[in-house]
């Protein structure tokens, strides 16, 4: 699908080709996006929203967990100001994503709208792939990957709202098997860090903490809390290199 190091600057750089590369490399994200988007479309219509209202929520808010919370709280009759505040609180973890990509992406007047596509998954993919791409390809690559993921999310919501029950009844394993693409993809992204003991321990602590938080029903805070624990581990534990005498 891609080479680990792709630093060579092509003689004839094509923005379209770079964007298509972004699209191609974002395809594994669909394994996680499509089943969740289908579920969201189904849940939203069951909560009383029309297909196009569900699609508008997906297109505008574009943040999985907070969309489910938004629809659920509206259906439960919660005050709208509380719905908005809790939706934003769930998304607050995204604050650290942009600064991490800032050094990897060129300046552009398009970022104010393009950053709309910066989800957990797109961030993880971009942080892994952008350093391996030449500067000239990065903007188009991000454009292709993020727009493709966003479009898949919106289309998945529409399909879920229109035929969610029929799809899940016809292919019951779709919702169980396809989401495995996400852990598989993220594993390939964190694996290169395991060559260093300090990073390996911090990564392991983070993964186990996130897993435990999720199993205990704290999936909304699992990502920032687990990452904070991993950072604490990274800064508090250091390994000394012993020189072996022959």
């Amino acid at each position, binding site marked *: *699908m891609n080479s680990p190091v792709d630093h060579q600057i092509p003689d004839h750089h094509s923005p379209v080709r770079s964007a298509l590369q972004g699209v191609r*490399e974002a395809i*594994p994200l669909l*394994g996680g996006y499509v*089943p969740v988007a289908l579920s969201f479309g189904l849940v939203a219509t069951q909560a009383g929203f029309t297909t196009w209202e569900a699609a508008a929520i997906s297109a505008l*808010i574009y943040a999985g967990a*907070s969309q489910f919370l*938004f629809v659920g709280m509206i259906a439960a009759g919660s005050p*709208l100001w509380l*719905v*908005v505040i809790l*939706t*934003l609180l769930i998304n607050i973890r*995204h604050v*650290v*994503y*942009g*600064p*991490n990509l*800032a*050094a990897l992406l060129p300046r552009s007047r398009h970022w104010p709208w393009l*950053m709309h596509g*910066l989800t957990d998954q797109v*961030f993880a993919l971009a*942080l*892994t792939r952008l350093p391996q791409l030449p500067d000239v390809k990065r903007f188009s690559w991000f454009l292709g990957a993020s727009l493709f993921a966003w479009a898949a999310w919106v289309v998945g919501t529409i399909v879920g709202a229109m035929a969610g029950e029929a799809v899940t009844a016809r292919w019951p*394993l779709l*919702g*169980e*098997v396809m989401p*495995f*693409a*996400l*852990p*598989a*993809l*993220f*594993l*390939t*992204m*964190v*694996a290169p*860090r395991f060559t260093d003991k300090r*990073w390996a321990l911090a*990564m392991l602590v*983070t*993964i186990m*903490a*996130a*897993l435990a*938080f*999720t199993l205990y029903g704290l*999936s909304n805070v*699992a*990502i*920032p809390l687990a*990452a904070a624990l991993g*950072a604490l581990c*990274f*800064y508090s534990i250091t390994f000394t290199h012993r020189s072996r005498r022959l």
Partner: protein
Amino acid sequence: MNSALWIAVFASAFGTLLIRVVPFLWMQRRLNSAAGLNAMPQWLTVLGPLMIAAVLGVSIVPVNPHAVSWVATFLGLCVTLAVWWRLRSLGWPVAAGVLTFGTVQVGVLLGS
């Protein structure tokens, strides 16, 4: 949806966009200052990869956690890692992992 609900949707959408774009633009401006790359706090460069590890931890939990799906997850991750070790790419390890995970799930379903 009534107009109050639409306002709530737009407020949530705009707030989420600001959360994503403002820190990015702020950091790009800092990086273009005289301090350059030194303007990037070290904790931020540590937190980035750890966020990916956290997303991995969250996504490992199967949709329907039971013994078979946990075994399928373990085997799928082992195969993903093995193929990554050999090819050092993103696409094929993911495809092999999903295939393994799906084979275990479907195999058990057909066998029962």
